[in-house]
């Protein structure tokens, strides 16, 4: 373990926290401006918390003291626009200002725009924001370019005076996503969501539909374990059931507009769900879900010819299924983006969705929605994602990401310190439970274990059960194999879009993608990176690599084995027992 990380041992944190608590108690409360404001917020908005009121007040008192050098000044941070960040921008900035005197301008922009700003600051070296909240998918980029401050170094170095003794890094459930190959923390999780299977539990429970399905396919209608079952169920609802309660229904939902978000659909997890990568958590080693192979930490190629899997049989199979399954989706799905397609299941015509982001949970629970019962409980459930025929136990099964605080070296130190205080405040144990209840994007283990969360779990369709389960580690974000996320991610959507229309076959599209990825890796090798720079393998025949053990995997004869389903309650049990499925 890294030296700095060892300082974050639980023992140390408890010790430091106690020392700070004692010293704070000695100083007395009246010495602090903002104490009354803190009381107001703790007794009001932050009443529901994983820690006691006293512990909350102690935490707030530390913030008041640490913020003094920055009081009265304004700093700016930026994030994408989702419910959690809206809450931060509108409510938590107000709480932070009242308590600490620091004004934070928390800008909300599109996710792509956040990356654009971050990339601009990285490329120009000129500060745009004091800190950014961006997805942990960029961990490989941040680590290699050397433009991002290691939070370990910051917390024990120049930011020591503004690092809360109660931060409790080990309580963040997504910290492994934001840790570089050197074991250092590069980002602090702020909100977290997963990508799961979503289905209408009420329809799946209808006896007449269960009978009809079993008669046709020979197995029970239930949560699909593999893609064969998913496809059978999709076909069943779209072409056999057709209408339910007077409404046209569809057995599948997805999105296919030529748009950057089409790339996320693939790079998040699709190839790993099909089984294209290697075994290993979080991302598969040596080949990850992007199909990029690494040797130690150096990317050596994405094409099968260089040992990667981006154009291997499993990847081609994954793209083919994505394209073909649109016949089970509403006709408009092909023209939708990620944002447009997300709310569609809530309209009540979709029976299941293989690739559904839990970030949409709050939208799916709105009273009066077609997918919510009169008592506020959901008609739907979320379950583990089914896997393709190339998938093996021990592989990543889905996507989970943590929108995380990122500090660039090019931002001024004062701004970084003030923004770091805000970052800790809005992820603190004092605030985290209420933030979860608002945006349903958990980041702390203590939040998940709190009574307040247990009280609402039955209304969240399996979200809490998923996050409480140790099985959640099978859902991971883009990992450290990807050396330049912005450049490489852009290659996916334009190639996938060509396969959608038949302008390219899935094989042609993936071959082109792999070639383009290799080219970017080659350019990064030429220009050189700070750490773990790519070093392309020499080209060899596909058969050489396909005959090696592991990924890239050779084509299997039967890509549509017998469909398999399980009852939802059995899956919940599996989660409780710490199994992925």
């Amino acid at each position, binding site marked *: 373990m890294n030296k700095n990380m060892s300082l974050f041992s639980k023992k140390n944190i408890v010790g430091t926290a106690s020392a700070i608590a004692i010293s704070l108690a000695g100083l007395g409360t009246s010495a602090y401006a903002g104490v009354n404001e803190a009381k107001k917020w703790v007794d009001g908005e932050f009443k529901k918390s994983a820690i006691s009121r006293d512990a909350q007040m102690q935490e707030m008192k530390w913030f008041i003291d640490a913020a003094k050098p920055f009081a009265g000044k304004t700093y700016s941070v930026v994030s994408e626009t989702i419910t959690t960040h809206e809450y931060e921008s509108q409510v938590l900035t107000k709480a932070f200002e009242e308590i600490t005197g620091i004004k934070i301008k928390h800008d909300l922009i599109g996710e792509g725009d956040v990356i654009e700003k971050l990339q601009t600051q990285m490329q120009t070296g000129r500060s745009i924001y004091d800190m950014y909240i961006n997805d942990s998918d960029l961990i490989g980029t941040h680590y290699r*370019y050397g433009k991002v401050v290691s939070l370990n170094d910051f917390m024990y170095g120049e930011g020591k005076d503004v690092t809360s003794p109660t931060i409790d890094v080990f309580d963040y459930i997504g910290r492994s996503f934001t840790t570089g190959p050197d074991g250092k923390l590069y980002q602090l999780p702020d909100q977290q969501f997963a990508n799961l299977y979503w289905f209408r539990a009420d329809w799946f429970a209808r006896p007449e539909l269960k009978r009809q399905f079993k008669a046709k396919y020979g197995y029970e209608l239930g949560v699909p374990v593999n893609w064969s079952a998913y496809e059978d169920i999709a076909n069943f609802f779209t072409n056999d059931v057709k209408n339910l309660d007077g409404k046209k229904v569809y057995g599948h939902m997805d999105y296919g*507009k*030529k748009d950057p978000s089409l790339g996320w659909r693939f790079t998040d997890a699709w190839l790993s769900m099909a089984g294209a990568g290697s075994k290993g958590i979080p991302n598969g080693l040596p080949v990850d879900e992007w199909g990029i192979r690494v040797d130690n930490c150096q990317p050596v190629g994405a094409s099968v010819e260089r040992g990667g899997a981006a154009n291997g049989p499993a990847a081609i199979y994954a793209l083919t299924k994505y394209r073909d399954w649109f016949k089970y989706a509403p006709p408009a799905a092909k*023209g939708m983006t990620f944002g447009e397609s997300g709310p569609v299941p809530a309209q009540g015509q979709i029976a299941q969705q293989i690739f559904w982001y839990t970030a949409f949970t709050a939208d799916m629970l709105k009273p009066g929605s077609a997918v919510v019962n009169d008592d506020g409980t959901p008609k739907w459930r979320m379950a583990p994602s089914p896997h393709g025929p190339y998938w093996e136990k021990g592989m990543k099964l889905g996507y989970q990401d943590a929108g995380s605080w990122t500090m660039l070296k090019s931002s001024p130190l004062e701004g970084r310190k003030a923004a770091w205080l805000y970052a800790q405040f809005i992820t603190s144990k004092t605030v985290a439970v209420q933030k979860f209840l608002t945006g349903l994007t958990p980041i702390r283990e203590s939040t998940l274990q709190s009574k307040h969360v247990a009280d609402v779990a039955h209304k969240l369709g399996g979200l809490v059960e998923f996050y409480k389960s140790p099985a959640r580690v099978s859902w991971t974000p883009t990992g450290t194999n990807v050396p330049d996320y*912005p450049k490489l991610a852009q290659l996916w959507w334009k190639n996938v879009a060509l396969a959608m*229309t038949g*302008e390219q076959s899935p094989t042609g599209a993936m071959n082109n993608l792999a070639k383009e990825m290799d080219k970017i890796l080659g350019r990064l090798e030429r220009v050189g990176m700070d750490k773990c720079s790519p070093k392309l393998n020499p080209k060899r025949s596909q058969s050489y690599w396909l005959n090696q053990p592991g990924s890239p995997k050779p084509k299997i004869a039967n890509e549509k084995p017998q469909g398999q389903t399980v009852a939802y309650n059995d899956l919940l049990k599996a989660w409780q027992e710490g199994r992925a499925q």
Partner: protein
Amino acid sequence: MEKTPNNKAWFLILPVFIMVAFSAIIPLMTVVNYSVQDIFGPDQRVFVGLEWFKETLRDSELHGALLRQFIFSFSVLALEIPLGIGIALLMPKKGWGVSASLVTIALPLLIPWNVVGTIWQIFARVDIGLGGAFMNAMGVDYNYTANYMDAWFTVLVIDLWHWLPLVALLCYSGLKAIPDAFYQAADIDGASRWKVFRFIQLPKLRSVLVIAVLLRFMDSFMIYTEPFVLTGGGPGNATTFLSQFLAQKAVGQFDIGPAAAFSLIYFLIILLFCFIFYKMMMTVGKGEKK
């Protein structure tokens, strides 16, 4: 009397030269500088010479986008110029109808590009859009998100809806500028409606039409927002034009070197056509004098 040359007069154009240098020449030189490098960051760049230019010129995606761009721009001209003239001829020449028709016709011109794209994106959707649903109800298997021809048809209709009013208004102003004496003479000669159009109105509209052609060609050649919002350039590459190709490289991928080389090639293409149209305009002017 012989004029004395005064070179000090050159100082008078110095402010203009400085302004142009800051607004055009310096940025252009920056782009030239980028175009010969592979840039990943301020400290991560290598000189690559003409590599990006050679690659761009060989790029089949660029060739496809360029071809689509020409087809689109010429289709726009082929539709908007005759229709613009037709509408202008039908518009009332006096009375309250003049103001009413001018305001009504000009309305689409007031709507921003991205709003135009969004309006049509929803209007043409087959599930919730009035236009898309109507087409389907009429038995037409219309879906602009999946079918090449439907996507092209929709982008062209959007451009017509948005910019045809400009052509119509230009033509209308050209028609209004024709002195009544011409019509009176035609009336005395007993000229038919067609002959009035062919031998009086069309020749008199020539200068206005050259401006309309120039504006619409240049605008349509740079089209970006409407297809970006409507189709994202799809389905496949069906509505991917040059600007989208460039934006994806420059803004999406942050691939500054190749994007700079592409920008320069794009700039040269536009410059070439500006020159051709400028020459055409000059020729038309001379023809009128004769």
